[in-house]
């Protein structure tokens, strides 16, 4: 019984987060991902329209360009970026986040994101 419950718990915690793989697109001499980020520990968290907790200083996706590599990979507006290629994104400044996403020697970035709608969907299905 306890092992079944722990399995269930593992699945639930995985389901609240999503792994997204984006292939960078080369445009001229820039590698672009096709979305915009906002937030960071040096920013004002109260102005973030996507966060539930207004003291959350994480990195959020504020815009996704239609047809870009991010939209193709399944990234949505309002996602909170938790990790980029294994690097933690919850306690970084805005500039550090930008740098981690735009490394010139990487073609693919693997993001771990959390989505509010995902959590709510799971919660609704449980009720």
């Amino acid at each position, binding site marked *: 019984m306890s092992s079944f419950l722990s399995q269930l718990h593992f699945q639930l915690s995985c389901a609240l987060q999503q792994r997204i793989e984006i292939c960078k697109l080369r445009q001229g001499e820039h590698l672009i991902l096709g979305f915009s*980020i906002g937030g960071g520990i040096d920013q004002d968290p109260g102005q973030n329209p996507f966060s539930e907790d207004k003291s959350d200083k994480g990195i959020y996706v504020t815009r996704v360009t239609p047809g870009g590599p991010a939209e193709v990979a399944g990234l949505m507006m309002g996602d909170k970026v938790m990790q980029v290629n294994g690097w933690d994104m919850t306690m970084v400044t805005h500039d550090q986040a930008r740098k981690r996403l735009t490394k010139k020697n990487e073609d693919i970035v693997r993001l771990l994101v959390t989505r509010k709608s995902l959590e709510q969907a799971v919660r609704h299905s449980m009720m």
Partner: protein
Amino acid sequence: MDNESQYSGYSYKSSHSRSSRKHRDRRDRHRSKSRDGSSRGDKSVTIQAPGESLLDAESTRGDDRDDNWGETTTVVTGTSEHSVSNEDLTRVSKELEESSPLECKRFLGPVLGGCLGLFALFTPLAFLVLPQLLWREALEPCGTPCEGLYVSLAFKLLVLLISSWALFLHPPRATLPRFFVFRCLLMVLVFLFVASYWLFYGVRVLEPRERDYRGIVEYAASLVDALLFIQYLALVLLEVRHLQPAFCLKVVRTTDGASRFYNVGHLSIQRAAVWVLDQYYRDFPVYNPALLNLPKSILSKKMSGFKVYSLDENSTNNSTSQSRAMIAAAARRRDNSHNEYYYEEAEMDRRCRKRKARLVVAVEEAFTHIKRLQDDDPAVSSHKHPREVMDPREAAQAIFAPMARAMQKYLRTTRQQPYHSMESILTHLQFCITHNMTPKAFLERYVSPGPTMQYQRENGRGRQWTLVSEEPVTSALRQGLVFSLRRLDFSLVVTVQPLPFLRIGEEFIDPKSHKFVMRLQSETSV
């Protein structure tokens, strides 16, 4: 003597003409001074004459006193008959106090001090004059140094005289229950000084008929120097030491909880008491016993409805058990008296405000009836029939009539009518007219209860206060001391607390360090 129940002195005045009111006023004034003015129609126990708490007990109104007021007290409702005997007691004690003579003890201290001071001042002159009178021929002549000493002596004596007059020669403001320690100390010091100087003078100068006059003059000059130093000591001990604030006194009046905080310096308890009373007469709103308690109609409902019969043989501890049983029973019942209290308060407020509005309108209108006669008016008045020119008193009487009723009703609603007789209102109106005051300034006196000082009458007897204290009253103030100043029907409780020690640090701010940035919320596209 009509035997009616209590009535306010104004009740007849409202609907009658001015002339008959004058007669009635004179008669009523004789009657109503010692009468309680609380409104009739209350079911409450009549509170004893509040006027006595303002008028001093020894005041000079013996001729106004109504001698028959014992027969015209109201019916006393409520459970206790003790209130009547209380009234009798205070009535008797007040009569005793009224008949006591003017205290001569009040002037004993200053007179003694004055004599001592004069004696001390004339002593150096006596030292100088006596050898000249007694053995002038045998004295050695004394040249310029003596003259210098004469001049300095004269000036020092003049300074002593002027500063004594400035500092010490004022009528005493209070008699203290015990000796004023510092003052006694100083008087003893002065006396000892002067006595010892006289002693030495008698032994060394008068006896052997000393011939060195310069020495005698120097001796007198040294006495004057010593007196100057003693006066400096007196200045510091009596006047300066208590100016530095050291304690915070909280003064609370027991009857209605009015409280104030004061900062004082190092004083003895009795001196602090005098100081507190000085401030009391200025700061505290006047004590109005009519405003004190919840009406009995609210409280009495709790107690009624229970009859307790005791079946014990011995009824010694009957009362305590009975009252305890009643209190317990009353506590168990559902208590709605707060509701009644709330509504009664709201109703009272509303009534007060309504009456006040009527009063303000009436007074404003009354003031429009007169105006000051300017000197350049005769051109106007000579055309019409000459207007009657009045002095302030007549003008006040002329405009008093339309506002009298509103004023009387308002005073009765706010329970202030014992403090303001018609005569006093007229006098105040005359005063306001003379000084060009607006109706609002005229009403300032009646709208809020003023300090007790405003209602005092001038008399030489003074106010009697009793200082109640667990420590001897000449001891100095210190933390945690509590003493109280008692009057006949209320007292002031004074608590002493030291002022906190302040540690003040310093922080320097460079004026160039005030810089600001906008809060960030940037968005970067990647």
